[in-house]
């Protein structure tokens, strides 16, 4: 009795599948044409995934994407003579969707770990991560190592989790979905410290007079992800990055977006000879 409808359903599924496949085939043919030598998803534009919640690197301001890496990728796109397009996304689906050609790259400095290198390629570094331990002044953790035996809040999925666990094995890491939830927990005394990137840490200390931050430790190089089957695009992004570093745009934008007292990481300057330190930053 149910055989007929089932067969019909399979038929519909097969048609849908065939349609999907032919569409995919069209997309592939397009990407290979001469008009789009970079191999971006749409000729003449480059689409970036970005994070809407990572101030001041990648966030939304007045309904528009804003931040250091947004403006840096805009400058890079101008060098590549393509129009940048930005889509907000969560971190978990960012790299899979770049591999699947939903986005060309991400305006988000991603730590290039071995597991992630299996999924996408990465450009040369856009920065080197630096992290600080934030704590309450009345129970201050003066260094990252002082978190031994304590409970520390870190944003979930962050590469800072394995970093801190490797450095301070006796620490208890408590994962929170975002920096606001972590900061609430620190204020409420649910955790003893909060381990986060340097700019976020300084931002927190400015907003909360009862917080204090430890000196920074390095967490590794961050880069922009690109699909493995788009070597031309990766090379174009690398070249564009080199040229925005050479013409001083990188330093200018870094200076514009980062709180005073945050210097361009020494590792970054060592990696790109000729990269200028921001004015007024010590070393």
């Amino acid at each position, binding site marked *: 009795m149910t055989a007929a409808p089932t067969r019909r359903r399979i038929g519909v599924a097969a048609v849908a*599948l065939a349609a*999907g*496949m032919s*569409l*995919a*085939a069209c997309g*592939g043919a397009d990407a290979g044409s001469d008009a789009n030598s970079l191999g971006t998803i749409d000729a003449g534009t480059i689409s970036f995934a970005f994070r809407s919640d990572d101030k001041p690197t990648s966030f939304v301001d007045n309904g528009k994407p804003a931040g250091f890496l947004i403006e840096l990728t805009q400058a890079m796109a101008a060098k590549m003579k393509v129009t940048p397009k930005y889509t907000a996304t969560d*971190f*978990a*689906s*960012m*790299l*899979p969707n770049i*591999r*699947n*050609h939903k986005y060309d790259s991400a305006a988000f400095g991603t730590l290039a*770990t071995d*597991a*992630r290198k*299996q*999924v*996408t390629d990465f450009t040369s570094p856009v920065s080197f991560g630096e992290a600080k331990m934030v704590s309450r002044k009345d129970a201050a953790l003066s260094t990252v190592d002082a978190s031994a035996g304590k*409970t520390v*809040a870190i944003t*979930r*999925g962050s590469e800072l989790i394995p970093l801190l666990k490797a450095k301070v094995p006796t620490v*208890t*890491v*408590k*994962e*929170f*979905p975002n920096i606001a*939830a*972590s900061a*609430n*927990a620190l*204020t*409420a*005394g*649910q*955790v003893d410290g909060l381990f986060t990137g340097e700019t976020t840490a300084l931002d927190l200390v400015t907003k909360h007079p009862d917080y204090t931050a430890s000196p920074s430790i390095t967490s590794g190089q961050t880069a922009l992800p690109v699909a493995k089957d788009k070597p031309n695009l990766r090379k174009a992004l690398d070249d564009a990055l080199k040229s925005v570093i050479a013409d001083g745009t990188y330093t200018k934008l870094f200076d514009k977006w980062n709180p005073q007292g945050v210097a361009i990481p020494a590792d970054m300057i060592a990696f790109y000879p000729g990269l200028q330190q921001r004015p007024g930053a010590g070393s």
Partner: protein
Amino acid sequence: MDGIQHVLDTFFDLPLILSTLPTLLKEGLLNTLFLTVLASVIGLVVGVFLASGLMSRHLLLRLPCRWYVDVLRGLPHILSIYLIGQGLPLAGLNVFGSWTYGYAALAIGLMEGAYMAEIFRSGFQSVEKGIVEAARSLGLSRARTMRLIVIPIGFRRVLPALTGQFILVIKSTALVYLLGLATGQREMFAIAQDTSSNNASLSPLVAAGLFYLVITVPLTYAVNAWDRRMREGRPVAALPPVEAAA
């Protein structure tokens, strides 16, 4: 063919799914079930009390219950969890110390209680007036009529709707991550999301999805069977033949 390969790589990366399963089984499943039971118990108690309040003749009792249900059913779950789970400790009410599960179970229970209240109210109000009048005329007090007659009959009638709500509680437990989780405290969804981020693939989420189905589908069938049993009594075949009795 590329498109299908991408879907397979993204969602159905078999080695990655298989390597996520042990952690889900050892750590996540127990935590999910534990949190579900805690939150459900709180939700049931809150729901029955609120339902009684919603049906009260006294305005002073009815109105606060009405407001509670309207507000907690109307707010996004994430906001309610933050308000209760992070609001309490921020206000200095560290009732559960730094035990995240206490705050999470309370927040989910208080939230789900609002939904359950309306389910219970519809069940209790569906109990025929005649039955209640019969109980009252036998000399049962209003409270005893409620406890002995209305609640048991009403509860039975809303069992299917309640099962649906339990399934929502199971899925709500995924929101515990909002309140911060230490290693060993992560429930299934948190484990899957972390593994997804670290491996840049959504397959671990599919692995967690399988476990949610393993819990929710048998639960639905078990409750349906229980419901049928209560409606129809034991299977007829178990009764002795009429002739033998005669």
